[in-house]
């Protein structure tokens, strides 16, 4: 910082240079051109006026290129190997989910031998062309004879969709409620936060069950809304706390002083300053949402029973846990890996979004 400061104010630089400092290259002396007596302190005026330095002391610009948010994320990932691993795994998860029909070895409804253990083979005519094939099940088959790897890959679609949509719902509603509560305070704050407390008192899954019961019917949209609403309280709480402290900052007063309205102050001035903990919270919520969806599906309140989701897979395997443990264990491992990946990525993102911290290093 000091180097740059000095550069930023050449006049400060120049005044810091004693006039007799370097012997000049041409062998002349500083005073050869006759300094003029300065009126203020009776000193001689030097060869170099304010803002001038000898050419050999001129420095190049040190203004750094400004880094965009994306560049900061890339930098963070390059430094933080764990976050990088998380990011790669999340990316993999997304690619697999999006391109499920191309990635999966079989169709989601195709059936083979029942409850085959991992790495076993099914032999038979599965594509109806009259010839017998041998099919390898890398992760085994479930109790209906579906290839487990295929089901997990298709299950990733539902899980990803539900997780992102759920966190999106919870993030937008929760953040808005929290900002409004923190910014306005008073009775508005009391009303919103008492509601949040009320919701806080119930475990998410119970709340989700309740909301689904109220809405009636199964389906992805209902699951998303149910879990999304159940997660509002965490976001609301976190951002309210942030807003309460940001509200007292002088730059908020300054923002009002240039004529910004309440909405603009809340969403343009405050949100960027509160975003770091929210991002972390969001990445922590994604795995929770996957688990909640799995939980609801497991209870039979999630998506349609024939839809492949990780929760349903675990639920199906439960009856056969002693005979065919892989049916439950492998989707469980998939959930665990994704949860882990999102968590490490979230940790890394927090550093990337903390502007002052990432720039200081």
């Amino acid at each position, binding site marked *: 910082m000091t180097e740059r400061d000095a550069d*930023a104010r050449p006049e400060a630089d120049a005044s810091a240079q004693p006039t007799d400092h370097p012997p000049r290259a041409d062998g002349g002396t500083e005073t050869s051109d006759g300094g003029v007596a300065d009126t203020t302190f009776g000193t001689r005026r030097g060869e170099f006026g304010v803002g001038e330095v000898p050419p050999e002391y001129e420095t190049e610009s040190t203004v750094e*290129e400004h880094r965009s948010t994306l560049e900061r994320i890339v930098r963070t990932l390059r430094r933080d190997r764990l976050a990088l691993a998380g990011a790669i795994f999340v990316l993999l998860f997304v690619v697999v989910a999006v391109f499920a029909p191309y990635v999966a070895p079989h169709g989601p409804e195709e059936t083979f031998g029942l409850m085959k253990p991992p790495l076993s083979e099914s032999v038979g005519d599965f594509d109806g062309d009259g010839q017998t094939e041998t099919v390898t099940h890398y992760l085994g088959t479930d109790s209906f004879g579906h290839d487990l790897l295929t089901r997990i890959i298709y299950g990733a679609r539902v899980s990803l969709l539900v997780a992102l949509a759920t966190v999106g719902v919870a993030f937008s509603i929760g953040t808005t409620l929290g900002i409004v509560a923190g910014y306005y305070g008073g009775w508005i704050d009391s009303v919103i936060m008492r509601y949040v407390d009320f919701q806080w008192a119930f475990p998410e899954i119970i709340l989700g069950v309740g909301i689904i019961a109220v809405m009636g019917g199964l389906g992805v949209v209902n699951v998303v809304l149910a879990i999304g609403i159940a997660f509002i309280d965490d976001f609301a709480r976190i951002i309210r706390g942030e807003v309460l402290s940001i509200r007292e900052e*002088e*730059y908020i*007063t*300054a923002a009002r002083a240039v*004529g910004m309205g309440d909405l*603009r102050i809340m969403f*343009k001035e405050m949100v960027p*300053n509160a975003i770091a903990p929210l991002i972390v919270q969001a990445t922590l919520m994604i795995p929770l949402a996957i688990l909640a969806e799995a939980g609801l599906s497991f209870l039979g309140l999630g998506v349609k029973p024939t839809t492949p989701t990780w929760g349903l897979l675990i639920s199906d395997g439960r009856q056969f846990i002693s005979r065919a443990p892989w049916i439950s264990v492998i989707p469980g491992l998939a959930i665990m890996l994704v949860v882990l990946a999102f968590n490490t990525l979230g940790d890394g993102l927090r550093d990337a979004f903390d502007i002052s911290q990432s720039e200081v290093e």
Partner: protein
Amino acid sequence: MATEPPVERPNRAGGRDPLLEVGGLQTQFPVERGTVEAVATADLSIEPGEIVGLVGESGSGKSVLAQSLMGMVEAPGEVVGGVVALRDSDLVREFAAAFPDAVTDVSEEDLALVRADEPAITSDAEAAATLAGPGEFVFVESRDADGDPEAGFVDVRRAPEAALQRLRGGRISMVFQDPMNSMNPTLTVGEQIAETVRLHQDVGESVSLPAELKRKIVGAAKNGEAWRRAIEMLEAVEIPEAEARADDFPHEFSGGMRQRAMIAMALSCEPDLLIADEPTTALDVTIQAQILDELTALKDAFDTSILLITHDLAVVAETCDRVNVMYAGEIVERAPADELFANPQHPYTQGLIASTPRVSNPDDEIEPIQGNVPDLIDVPYACHFAPRCPESERECFEREPDFREVGESHEAACLRRGPPGDRL
């Protein structure tokens, strides 16, 4: 941005009409034990192109006064009385068009009637304000042949939030004490200035949230007029390599540069009045001098007036044209700067000057003012300075001090000053 002499306004009341006329301003904060009178009937006027100082010790109500001028007193505080008249014909026209329901016409005869009724009211603005109906804050004093407002003022105190948001930043802007905290750490300096420009000037860039998002995603923020203007402003306050530095975040600026950037932001929409609330207090002396020089130069370049709030008498002596001395919520003395320092009259001002250390005479005894600033909750005595005043008499505690002429355009609110006949 050429340096032009301030436009002469039609001469109405004998002198030049001030840009800002504050009359009888009262700001109170209710607390459990009573009411804190942070500003108790303050009168203040600022001419176009002038730098007016407001000095006083900590807790004298300077900053609350500034907040009152911008309609930014924090709840539960409230401006309970007075008028803050911002006089500018363009402004009156603009507001008369934007808030047609809030316009009220005041004629010379109306004012004469009010003055006859209430001799205590001295200023036009104060008299006019007594005629305002509910919700009216745009006062038109005269209209041209087409019926468009020609002269008048906007009462900032009565203005609703929507009008205040137009005024703030666009007409009155503010520079704060602590440059470290007065810029948003998550937005680039250029973006913060550009945003102010977008808010107040018609540069064809929408400020709606979707438009903001689009700019952010497409990255078009830097192609626009607003961004160009932000860079111009940074150049105007002598930030080196302005174009590159506009992309920096505030923490990449030094304290002095941040204060320059704040000034750039405050001046970006060419306000009529810049309120500088202790702009140099948090800076070291060399930077202080630079900032003050710059403020003075920019004042001319941007044709703006400055209200400089400070506790530093040296800063006032150096920069201001006229000075108001404030003590415990009241303005106690006002005079041209040279006159004030050559011939301080109010005992408080005298004490303030005597208690300032001087570099030239380090051996001089510093004489602090005895006692402390009073608790401003329901002050029982008339002259707020009386308990600390070396010259106070019984009557000082009982009778409200009025302003007395003590020199050329020099007034002091002290019963023991003024013409010998009135003096206590």
